[in-house]
């Protein structure tokens, strides 16, 4: 719900800045480790956007890969989950470096 409210704030800011009345499509980039429950965000989005320029807008979510630094082979690797072992050396000590993004990429407006 907080995320949807964050989106609403940004939509309102952008509407003031660019002078549009309606958002038809909004695209988000969500990292694999961001922990965003997509159906929950979709539900919250519909509810929170009511009365805003983004009411009824289509919500698209693009996945971004999870990246982590392996402490054993000292390389940055892509992993599916935070607990995955290093795909290069099998090491278990990885520090996430990316994949927790929650960004609005762009919006189609009218």
């Amino acid at each position, binding site marked *: 719900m*907080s*995320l949807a409210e*964050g*989106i609403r*704030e*940004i939509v309102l800011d*952008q509407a003031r800045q*660019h002078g*549009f009345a309606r958002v*038809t499509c909004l695209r*988000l980039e969500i990292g694999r*480790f*961001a*922990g965003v429950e997509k159906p929950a965000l979709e539900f919250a989005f519909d509810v929170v956007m009511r009365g805003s320029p983004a009411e009824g807008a289509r919500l698209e979510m693009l996945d971004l890969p999870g990246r982590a630094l392996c*402490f054993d082979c000292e390389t940055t690797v892509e992993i599916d989950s*935070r*607990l995955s072992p290093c795909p290069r050396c099998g090491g*278990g*000590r*990885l*520090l*996430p470096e990316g994949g*927790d*993004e*929650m*960004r*609005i*990429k*762009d*919006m*189609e*407006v*009218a």
Partner: protein
Amino acid sequence: MCTVCGCHGTVTFDPGPEVKSPLPPAAAPVSSLAAAVSAVAGMTPRSRAAPKPAPAHHHDHGGCGCGPGHHLHPYGQRAAGGSVPGMSQERLIAVETSILSKNDALAAENRRALAARQVLALNLVSSPGSGKTTLLCETIRAMGARPLAVIEGDQQTSADADRIRATGARAIQINTGKGCHLDAAMVGHALTALNLPQGACLFIENVGNLVCPAGFDLGEDAKVAILSVTEGEDKPLKYPAMFTAARLAILNKIDLAPYCGADLAAYRANLRRVNPHIEILEVSARTGEGMQGWLNWLAARQSEKAEAL
């Protein structure tokens, strides 16, 4: 960048299939696309009257630059330029903004305000019932007369703030209602109310929740995750974001470890698995075991903060 067709810069926009020219290429010396477009729009292409033919996809950007008569984007298929009367004008706006950017900006303000007064701010995060408040009460008693304050976050009640105030320390209770975390705006208001003295220590006891508080920066110097030995060794693996975000993990209630079969080595291993950098202290706030290590850690962070200015 052109927000109509996205033909320049990083924004990608699918303008839909191009309008096919009704004329063979040889009969359209200027631009088959221009002819097609102007036929659709019922206009004369400016290029016929102009001394030189216009390029097929001319962009003199700065408000798109294209005059109303030779706007050569493939119209009609999707969002169009404004030269077709009655059609809506859809545009693509590149936002590239973090959803939490507003919170992050407020957190940065908090951080500046705290740094100006050399206040060490710690965000205490954990599941409900891990012993955050007991740890804080004991910490306050041990710190004696040093200036400190506590911001308490809970969905309901002022029970925790009351416990803190009973030790003589200042506390502000924030009730978040249905909210599952504190955010930077709430802490910003509390900071204004607290008006902390130079060199104070600020403890922010977040809402008991191992999930959401991990994502909300409050402007703190560090997150301290408290994990009691009754919770289970698997918690760092189940809620990795929180333990990845924390600088220090306090394993609390270690006096109970023998009674609940807690494997302290497994706790440590699982913490390091999700965060190889994490510092770990084993403490029992109730018996005082390990408290000195925590107080030393606090003192080290406070002197770091004092030197940073």
